């Protein structure tokens, strides 16, 4: 049943791609900044 609805789920997830991508970028940037800060 879950596989049959895969298209529906994928469409739902598509709405959230921009925020997921942005959060990942933010998280990576912040971690890099912290590492850079502790390194210096």
């Amino acid at each position: 049943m879950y596989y049959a609805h895969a298209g529906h789920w994928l469409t739902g997830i598509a709405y959230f791609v921009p925020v997921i991508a942005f959060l990942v970028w933010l998280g990576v940037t912040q971690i890099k900044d912290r590492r850079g800060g502790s390194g210096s």
Partner: protein
Amino acid sequence: LILFAHAGGLLGRADLPIPEWLFGWAAAMVLFVSFVALAVLWPEPRLERNRWRPLPGGVGRVIASRPVEIICGLLGVALLGVVVYTGFRGTQSPAANFAPTFVFVNWWVGLVPLSVLFGDVFRAFNPWRAIGRGLGWTAARVVRGGLPAPLRYPERLGHWPAAAGVFAFVALELVKSEGDKPETIAIATLVYSAATFVAMALYGVEAWCERGEAYSVYFNLFSRISPWETRDGELGLRPPLSGLAHFKAGAGTAPLLAVMIGSVSFDGAGEAPIWTGIAPDISRFFQDRGLSPEPAFELTFLVGLSAAIGIVYGFYRLGILGARGVGGGFSAERLARAFAHSLVPIALVYVMAHYLTYLLIRGQAILFLSSDPLGHGSDLFGTATKQIDYGVIGSEATWYWQVGFVIAGHVAGLTLAHDRALAMYTDAKQAIRSQYWMLAVMVGFTSLALWLLSQANT
């Protein structure tokens, strides 16, 4: 519950040139561009400035005068009376009785755009404030030595009573079985009125209306988007949104806004497979533990509503934690309160986008219900035979209006947060970096809003 909840899908899916989810991406792009534009073109706080000018020719004094205030208050009291009377005495069919349509559609939803367009309309018509002030005025003249001074409103209460009041209202609308039954509405109105008068007697009418009275706080928040403001008994103009910049957030403000956004989200998600798929399982879980089907059903919806509010609040706190991480020395609580006002335009567009067709279509029913408020066949104003025009807005136009509302509201929220950050942080670069997280919050709420609308349109 059936008639008045899940109102987003009164019209079917629009025939659109691109998939609906692409509108979500486009909306996110608009937010990213707006963010860059704000960073470049808005270098210092503007909304925080205290700008206001009275209307010319003394018009503002007339509009905000005591006689006008008394007339509006009396109208509000009369409407409160009509709701209670029709609730008890009228037909118990929700669609044929004045009370449910007036309370859930024309008042709860309809007053939101009116507050944005014309300012704090509800304050003028607030029946509880009018009765409280009237009783206070009378008692001060009857009681020897005057009334004792009210207690000081406890800071720790903040907007928590308002949050609880709004939660109770949305629970009546979305959780309670037969919550739209006229008699239930009349009883709830009387219970709320009694609680409000006790609180007003303890803390004073104005103090309670400003912080604790759920509907005063709810509609006042939306009215702060508008350019209209009354100061010292005179109506005047201020820059749009600046009323929010001067709003004093306190304990419970962010949870109140989470209730406002989360309840609309839950109403939208109520039609989504994600909820319709798991709701029966949750209900069965409660029934397996001895609950009969109706309480199990109500508890299931209470869990869903609470979860939606929790998710909205959690996402906001996530953004605040991220903003705290960029430095500046502010506590998470301080940041959560400082940026809470930026959620108000989002709450507005959630209401407007989700309930647009509900208001425009179902709201017309007040025309014939006013003539036959009890549903007994009367025709007081000659409008009892009027019918709802379902063609007032098309499905495609609805979708474009909804997307437009969602984008405009989130850009407004972004602007408020940007302005506040500039006022708080001494380093402009740090202010901008803190707003990366608020941008993520705004993009997240935009995506959620459009996804919910797509579910309602299915």
